[in-house]
Each structure stands twice: as structure tokens, then as C-alpha cells.
């Protein structure tokens, strides 16, 4: 299936087995044992009541829940294995069916490298608009995360200003991680309902989805849980993301870290299914290793890449879609490290067909947005996209006729077969393949071309506008939340 102005990976030829079925089972059993014996913290009155009503052992004082394996397993089975993320433009609806890898932007950045001046500064609402608009035009980006924080808007309704800004500048699906309390979640749902013409239509056309972090080790955040329950009630796809990091918020060893993160996500997901059986949910993860010298969340390095590949195997085991953190880097500017970490994390998460990849555009451990980085990340995604097609072997691709035509010696430049297939070769936008002398006179590189492309896109691209009345109604909803 192909989408309007969206490039997704599908029907892959490459495969990778990072975990055997036996190993997955071991992690699953460890997970159930953790949930039953150690417990998971659910600091939400509503969540604890749901658990209690469903036969879990609840420690109200510590807010820790211990649950028998069969309750968890039965609940998870109720989750739909496939569904769609709707978009304002139905031609951009995304299938989460295990056969599509959809790239999103990263989210919640706090600083931006200004698109014009190149200076680093605090992020604002206009950045949210600009990024959404560029993402709308960029085929590699299939959906949005709210890329940066609109820090010039009031704290209590910030997440809503951001959502409105994205919807006004793009027709693609929006997923937010900036809505993590009941008040904002309620308003966000109302806003989404405006687009599809009613709350009852959201289940059929969820133009919004929610991502909530778990609180590793083995906990959740109260506001996030309550927001997730609200979303699940109306059929808005919701996922819990674990960021358990080796040696700080999770065990140092990767298997143990996977088990801890899995326990958080699976327990949270089970809660949503117990409350609203059949609610669309997804597994989300961005596990990594901590830096042993600073404790920093690295978001890169070999452990990170392996987690990227391992997690979809777990999500497949539970038969729910996965949203996987990729493209994270500790690099301070678009450089060798950023390219390396972006490439390997994205390759590993794609080769196992993670349904959603998050996301392009960030530097400095998910803090600084760079438009150049966004464009170059998109090129990396395109390369991985091409690689995933693998090598097609058939009569046409074996090219026997032109091999005979050319014979020993000569060249293939004049062959019809070449002309027919040449556009299948990957044409990079940002790779330097010029003569040395040309580079020598200009001394420019990918970063210059990428920022030029971003500027041009921002200047030229006109997204389909959102109905003015809807905008006004959204404004009213936002006002009602502001103090």
C-alpha cells in the first residue's frame, strides 16, 4: 500500500534474529515473575482500583501492584494486533500491521538551532509550526511527534497549543508525548474530536495518539496513567514507553534490562486492556545504556542498537505494534557520531519491522532540535528503506540480455536495461560524491545542503489548511484550560 507523500518501509527482504523464540520466552517468564513477585508501582487511584477489581494484590500505601501471570496474559490477548493511525488527510492514514515502518519526528526538545541564524536558543511555538510544516512536505516523515516544547505558551495548556500548531500545519497523524495529565488529555481528545466530527468517531479515525513514559525501574507516573486511561476509553491509540537504562534505572545486563522494561510496559498495557478491552495500544521503548562516567542516558552505542532490534521481537510476541526510539544521539552538532548513531539504531529497529520509529531531528540526548539533522536523518531513513528492499533476483534483474549485448569489456551505459532500471539506484541528496576540486572551492557539505533544503521547504510548502472554525473551537478549548 502506498500513502500520499509518505515513504514507509514494507515487504522487507532483510531479516535478523537477535533473540530466539526460547530467549523471548525466558524474558517473558522473567517479566511475569517480576510483575507477580516484585510488583510494579501505579501511583494513580484509578489505576489501583482497576487492578483491585481485577484480582491483583494492591499495596495502597506504596501503590505497588502484584499480579498473577494469567491475569496479565489474558488481558494482553485482548489488545488488537493491528489498527491504523488516522490522519487529517485519509490518504495519509498509517497501517500499524507489522508490515510498515513509519518514521516520526522526535519530540519534546527544549532548544532549537534557529533555522535562519544558526544560533541555539529556547524552543517556542513558531518552531512547532515550522517543524510541522517541513515534516508535512517531507515524504520520509510519516507522522509527527510534537517536536519541541512551545515554551512561550502557558505551562498548563502547553501541550494543547503544540497540538493545534501541528494540526494547522500538517495533514499527517499526530502523536504527542507532551500531554501527561487528565486536564490536558481531556482537552486534547476534544480537539481531536473536532477534526473527525465527534468523539464517537475517534475510535474509527484516531487522528491523535498518545505516548506516555513509564517510570523505570518498575513504575509509572500518575498523571501519565490517568491520561492514558482517558485516551484508551475513546479508542485513541496509547503506548507506554520504557527508557530503562543499563546500570541506572535498569540492570546492567541487557537481558535483565529488557525484562524490567518489559514488565513496566506489559503491566501498563494490561491495565488499559482490563479497563477497556480491545483498546488500541502499542509497545514503546527507548532502552539504552547509561554512561558509566556521568550517568547520562546515552541513547546510542551498541547496546542501544541491540535493544532497538530486540524490542520488536517482544512486541511481536505480545502481538501489539511497537514504537521504537531511534536516531537518538549524544552528539552536539550534526557530525560523525550523529550519523553513526542515527544509522545503526534506525537500521536495527527497521530490520525487525518496528511499526513506528522515533524520531528524526534531535541532538544532545533528545534536547536540541536541528533542522539540518532532521533532513539528514530523513536521508538515513531513505537509505535504510532502500536496503530493506534487499536484492531482487529474477530473470529481469539478472539482466542476461544486456550482459550478452555488452559481452566482455565495454560498458552498460548505453543499454536499454540500464535506462529502465537506473532510477532504482539510490540517489543521495546529501552525500558528497563530487570531484575534489569542486569541494575545494566551496568547502561545503551535507549540513549546508540539508539546512538549505529545510529553508526552501519552509518557504515554499503550503500545507492544506485546517478549517478556520475548527481552529477557533480549538482556541476556545485551550482557553478553558488556561488559568
Amino acid at each position, binding site marked *: 500500500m502506498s500513502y500520499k507523500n509518505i515513504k514507509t518501509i514494507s515487504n522487507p527482504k532483510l531479516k535478523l534474529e537477535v533473540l530466539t523464540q526460547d530467549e523471548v520466552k525466558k524474558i517473558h517468564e522473567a517479566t511475569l515473575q517480576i510483575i507477580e513477585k516484585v510488583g510494579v508501582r501505579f501511583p494513580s487511584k484509578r489505576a489501583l482500583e482497576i487492578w483491585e477489581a481485577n484480582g491483583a494484590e494492591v499495596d495502597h500505601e506504596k501503590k505497588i501492584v502484584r499480579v498473577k501471570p494469567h491475569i496479565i496474559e489474558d488481558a494482553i490477548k485482548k489488545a488488537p494486533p493491528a489498527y491504523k493511525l488516522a490522519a487529517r488527510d485519509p490518504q495519509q492514514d498509517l497501517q500499524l500491521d507489522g508490515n510498515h515502518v513509519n518514521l516520526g519526528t522526535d519530540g519534546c526538545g*527544549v532548544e532549537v538551532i534557529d533555522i535562519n541564524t544558526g544560533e541555539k536558543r529556547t524552543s517556542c511555538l513558531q518552531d512547532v509550526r515550522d517543524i510541522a510544516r517541513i515534516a508535512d512536505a517531507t515524504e520520509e516523515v510519516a507522522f509527527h511527534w510534537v517536536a519541541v516544547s512551545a515554551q512561550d505558551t502557558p505551562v498548563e495548556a502547553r501541550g494543547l497549543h503544540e497540538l493545534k500548531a501541528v494540526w494547522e500545519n500538517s495533514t499527517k497523524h499526530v502523536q504527542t508525548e507532551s500531554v501527561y495529565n487528565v486536564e490536558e488529555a481531556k482537552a486534547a481528545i476534544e480537539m481531536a474530536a473536532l477534526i473527525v466530527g465527534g468523539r464517537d468517531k475517534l475510535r474509527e479515525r484516531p487522528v491523535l495518539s498518545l505516548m506516555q513514559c513509564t517510570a523505570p525501574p518498575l513504575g509509572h507516573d500518575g*498523571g501519565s496513567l490517568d491520561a492514558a486511561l482517558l485516551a484508551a476509553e475513546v479508542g485513541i491509540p496509547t503506548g507506554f514507553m520504557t527508557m530503562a537504562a543499563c*546500570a541506572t*534505572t535498569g540492570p546492567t545486563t541487557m537481558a535483565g534490562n529488557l525484562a524490567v522494561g518489559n514488565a513496566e510496559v506489559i503491566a501498563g498495557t494490561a491495565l488499559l486492556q482490563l479497563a477497556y478491552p480491545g483498546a488500541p495500544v502499542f509497545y514503546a521503548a527507548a532502552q539504552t545504556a547509561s554512561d558509566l562516567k556521568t550517568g547520562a542516558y546515552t541513547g546510542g552505542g551498541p547496546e542501544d542498537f541491540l535493544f532497538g532490534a530486540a524490542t520488536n521481537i517482544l512486541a511481536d510476541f505480545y502481538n501489539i505494534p511497537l514504537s521504537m526510539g531511534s536516531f537518538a544521539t549524544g552528539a552536539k552538532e550534526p557530525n560523525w557520531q550523529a550519523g553513526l548513531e542515527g544509522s545503526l539504531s534506525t537500521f536495527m529497529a527497521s530490520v525487525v519491522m518496528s511499526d513506528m520509529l522515533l524520531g528524526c531531528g534531535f541532538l544532545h*540526548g533528545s534536547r536540541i532540535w536541528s533542522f539540518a539533522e532532521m533532513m539528514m536523518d530523513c536521508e538515513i531513513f531513505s537509505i535504510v528503506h532502500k536496503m530493506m528492499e534487499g536484492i531482487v533476483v529474477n530473470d529481469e534483474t539478472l539482466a542476461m540480455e544486456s550482459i550478452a549485448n555488452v559481452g566482455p569489456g565495454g560498458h552498460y551505459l548505453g543499454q536499454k536495461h540500464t535506462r529502465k532500471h537506473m532510477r532504482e539506484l539510490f540517489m543521495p541528496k546529501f552525500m558528497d560524491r563530487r570531484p575534489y576540486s569542486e569541494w575545494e572551492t566551496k568547502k561545503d557539505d551535507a549540513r549546508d545542503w540539508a539546512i538549505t533544503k529545510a529553508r526552501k521547504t519552509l518557504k515554499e510548502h503550503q500545507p492544506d489548511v485546517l478549517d478556520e472554525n475548527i481552529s477557533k473551537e480549538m482556541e476556545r478549548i485551550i482557553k478553558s484550560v488556561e488559568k
Partner: protein
Amino acid sequence: MSEEMYKQMAQCIIDGDSDIAIELAKKSIELKMHPLETITKGFVIGVNYIGDQFGLGEAFLPELVMAGEAMKAAVAVLEPELLKLGEAREMLGRVVLATVEGDIHEIGKTLVGTMLSASGFEVVDLGVDQPADKIIGKALEINANLIGMSALLTTTMVRQREVIEELDKEGLRPRIKVMVGGAPITRDWVTKIKADGYSEDAIGAVKVAKDLVGKGDQ
């Protein structure tokens, strides 16, 4: 005899072994060794060694954290003895540390706490999601000279300002100094909210804290 004990004490801190640290501390009391000397000639040597190794990139955070915990365990055993003698270990300052209300990011704050304790500060770590009144209340209760606040969300960093405004309203600064940190915290923000200090990492936090309590040379 005591030389040998001191060596073992330093070693158990280096090994991050709280059980042995407690055992040795108890033994030193039985042997009527002076508690302050036990600390300075024994356990502290281990902490300093790990600190140096960490600075050199030879030791890592988990070793530092465990050394800190073993040290704490030993001191807890010796503290009552010190009090009996009417002596107290000289601390660089008293710090109340917390992640602000609405924010559950924990690791950065905890590391700052670990480094501050390891460097000779008395630290009360209130944990995450802490409202202004709790933070200020605790600071007054223990007569703290420093409040450290962590915030990792753009929506919660405003709480740092609230605490500072409250302190100013009560006329509690400069008696209590305030330092802040966390992912969205920039120098601009620090100036804007009139915080006394800021650091991007835990090592830097120690230096800032020392400066703020007037012990920058230690």
C-alpha cells in the same frame, strides 16, 4: 594494630562493602578507638581514593555510589559515639535536594546528591515530585544553607522560580542559597529566576555548592 584496621576500613569503602564497613566501625568502638580518627584516618581515605580514581576515569559511577553508601553506613555507626564526646564531623554544608513538583526524573538529582555527600556535604534527598512548601520546610527544619532543585521538564522548571520567590518573600535568602539543574535549564533561565548557582553535571554541582557555602578552596 590500628594501622592495620585503618587499611581495612579504607579497603572496604573502595570495595563498596557496607557490611564490612559496619562491622569494622563496631569493632573500632569496642577497641575504644577515637571515632573521629577512625573516620579521617580510615574510611575517608577509601572515599578519597575512589574519588581520585573516578576523576582519572579509572573508577565508575556504581563504584562511587557504593563507596558513598558504605561510608554512610560506617558513619551512622560512629555518629552516636561522636555525639557522646561532644564532637561532630565537620561538614561543608547542609543541603536539601529534590526534584520539583510534577516531575519524576530522578537519576540526575540522585547523582548530584551522591557527589555532594561524597565531598563532605550533609545531604537530605527528599526524592521526586516535591512541592515548594516541603522543600522549604525541610530546609528550615534542618537549618540548611543550600537548596538544590532538579527539573527536567519545561513545564516543571517554573517550580524552581516559585521556590526562589517564596524564599525571597520570607526573607530566607541569602541565608539559604539555591542551586538548580536539569535538562532544560540554561544559564539564561538561571539568571532570570535569580538562582545562586547552576551546573550541567554532578561534578560541577560540587564545585558550585562549595563556592556557595564559601568553601570554594576545599
